[in-house]
C-alpha cells in the first residue's frame, strides 16, 4: 500500500472522491479566500457550489485542480493528497478530472476534432483509439457533424459542448464545471445542464460552480453555499440561498 493510499484510507471513506479537511486559503495578508472549509463529496454525486462574487468558489475549484495549494488543511481528491503531491505527478492527477470553464478555453486554431483529440494525445492514447473515441464523444454531445469546424465558427452552446467532450473523452471520475452556463442563453444553458445530468447519471461525479439561481432550483441537487470563504449551507436536494 502506497503512502498516498494510506492517506486516502485514513481520511476518506471508500465511496468518497473529494475531501476538504479544514482547508483555508489566503492570498498574502488579505482576508482568506477560504476559511476552515470541510467538505465530503461522494462518488456519483451532482453538487452545486454557489455564492456571490468573492465568496471563494473559484478558489475552491483551483484547489481541486491543484492550481493552488491550501494555506492550511488538506485537500484529498481520489488517491491524491493535493497538498503533498509532487509537481511531476500533477498532470497524471489532472487526467482523472474533466474541467469545463465559463469561457470554454478551447484551442482556437484547432478544429473541434483536434481540440477533443488533444486530451487523448496527452495520455498517449494510440491513434487508432483516438479515431474511434473522438467521433463517439462528439456524437454524445451532439456535434458529430461539426468535427472539422474551428471553435470561432460555433455558437457559445456548441463551444461549451466541445469543452465538455474534451473534458469527458478520457472518462474522468470527476467533472468540474466552473460557471459552464455563464456565457449562454437560457435555452443553451438548459441543454448543457441536461447533458451534465446525463453524464452524472452515467456515474461521473459533477461539481458545478454557478450563479444561476433558476438552474440550481430546477435541478434539485446537493447545494453548497459559500459566503466570504465560509460554508454557510450544505443541503441535499437544496435550493439557491438568496442572501439578499
Amino acid at each position, binding site marked *: 500500500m502506497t503512502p498516498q493510499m494510506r492517506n486516502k484510507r485514513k481520511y476518506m471513506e471508500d465511496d468518497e472522491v473529494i475531501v476538504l479537511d479544514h482547508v483555508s486559503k489566503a492570498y498574502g495578508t488579505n482576508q482568506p479566500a477560504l476559511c476552515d472549509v470541510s467538505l465530503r463529496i461522494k462518488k456519483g454525486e451532482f453538487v452545486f457550489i454557489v455564492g456571490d462574487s468573492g465568496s471563494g468558489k473559484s478558489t475552491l475549484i483551483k484547489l481541486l*485542480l491543484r*492550481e493552488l495549494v491550501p494555506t492550511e488543511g488538506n485537500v484529498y481528491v481520489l488517491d491524491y493528497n493535493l497538498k503533498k503531491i509532487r509537481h*511531476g505527478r500533477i*498532470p*497524471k*492527477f*489532472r*487526467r482523472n*478530472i474533466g*474541467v469545463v470553464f465559463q469561457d470554454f*478555453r*478551447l*484551442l482556437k*486554431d484547432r478544429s473541434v476534432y483536434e481540440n477533443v483529440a*488533444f*486530451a487523448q*494525445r*496527452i*495520455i*498517449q492514447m*494510440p*491513434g487508432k483509439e483516438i479515431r474511434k473515441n473522438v467521433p463517439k464523444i462528439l456524437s454524445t454531445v451532439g456535434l458529430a457533424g461539426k468535427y472539422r469546424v474551428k471553435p470561432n465558427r460555433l455558437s457559445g452552446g456548441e463551444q461549451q459542448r466541445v469543452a465538455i467532450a*474534451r473534458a469527458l473523452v*478520457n472518462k474522468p471520475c470527476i467533472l468540474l464545471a466552473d460557471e459552464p452556463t455563464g456565457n449562454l442563453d437560457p435555452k443553451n444553458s438548459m441543454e448543457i445542464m441536461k447533458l451534465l445530468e446525463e453524464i452524472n447519471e452515467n456515474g461521473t461525479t459533477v461539481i458545478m460552480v454557478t450563479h444561476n439561481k433558476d438552474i440550481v432550483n430546477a435541478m434539485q441537487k446537493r447545494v453548497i453555499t459559500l459566503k466570504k470563504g465560509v460554508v454557510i449551507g450544505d443541503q441535499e436536494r437544496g435550493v439557491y440561498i438568496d442572501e439578499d
Partner: protein
Amino acid sequence: MRISTFFYTLWQGFKNIFRNKLFSLASIATIGACLFLFGIFYAILANFENIVKTAEEGVCIVVFFDEDITDKRIDEIGEMISKRAEVSALNFVSADEAWETFKEDYLGEYSEGFTENPLAGSSNYEIYLNDVSMQASLVTYIESIPGVREVKRSELTALTLSSANKLIGYVSVGIIGILLAVSVFLISNTVTIGISVRSEEISIMKYVGATDFFVRAPFVIEGMLIGLIGAAIPLAVIYFVYNRALTFVTEQFSVLSSLLNFLSVDKVFSVLLPVSLAVGVGIGFFGSFITVRKHLHV
C-alpha cells in the same frame, strides 16, 4: 514515449510556425538581422586577421654561424631550432646560394668582376615563425647556442604585426560579443512576447493534464526551427554577397588583391556556418525553453 507522440509533437512544432505567422516572421527577421550583422563583421574581421597573419608569415629571423663551424654543427643547430614550438619553417641558405641571390637582386652584370664569393662566411638559416610575438624569446634562445655568430631580425615589423594582431583580436571579441549579446536579447524578447501571447494555450494544455514536456516540446521545436531559418537566410545572403564582393575586388583592384590575401568564401563559412546555425538554433531552443517554463506553473 510513443513514436506517434514524438511525431505529433514534431508536427505541432512545424504547424505552430504557420499558426503564428506574424510572430514567426518577426522572430525570423530579428534572428536574421542579428546574424547577418554578425556574419558581415565576422567576414571582415577574419579577412583582417588573415592579412596580418600572412604578413607575419613573411617575417623571418636569419641565423649566421661562426666562421670555423663544421657542417655537422650547422645540422645540429638546425635540428635544435626546428624543435622549438615558435618555429613554423626553417630553410638553410648556403653561402653560394646567398651570393647568387645577392647577385640577382643587386649586382646583375656587374658581378662578373668577382672571382671569389665575398659572402663566404654567410651561410645561414632563415626561420619562419608560427607567431611573430614569440620572436624575442626565440632569438634569445638561438643567441645562446654555441656556434651562432649573429641573429638578424626585424623587431619593428614584429612588434607592429604583433600589436595589429592583438588589436584585431580584441576588436573581434568586442564587436562579436556585443552583437551576440544584442542578438540574444532581441531574439529572446521576441520569443518571450510570442509565447506570452499564447500563455492561455499553455494553461489549457496544463488543465487537460499535459506534462511539462508535452507542452514545452512543440514550442521548443518551433523556436529551434525559427532559429534555423533565421540563421540560414542571412548565411545564404552573406555567401552570395561575399562571393560577389571577392570577385569584384579581384577583378577591379588586381593590385590590391595581389598585395592582400583575402579569404575564400569556403574558409569564411567553415567557421561562420556552424557558429551561426548553432547561435540561431541555440537561441531558439533556450529562448523558448526558458519562456515556456514561466507559464508552466498552472
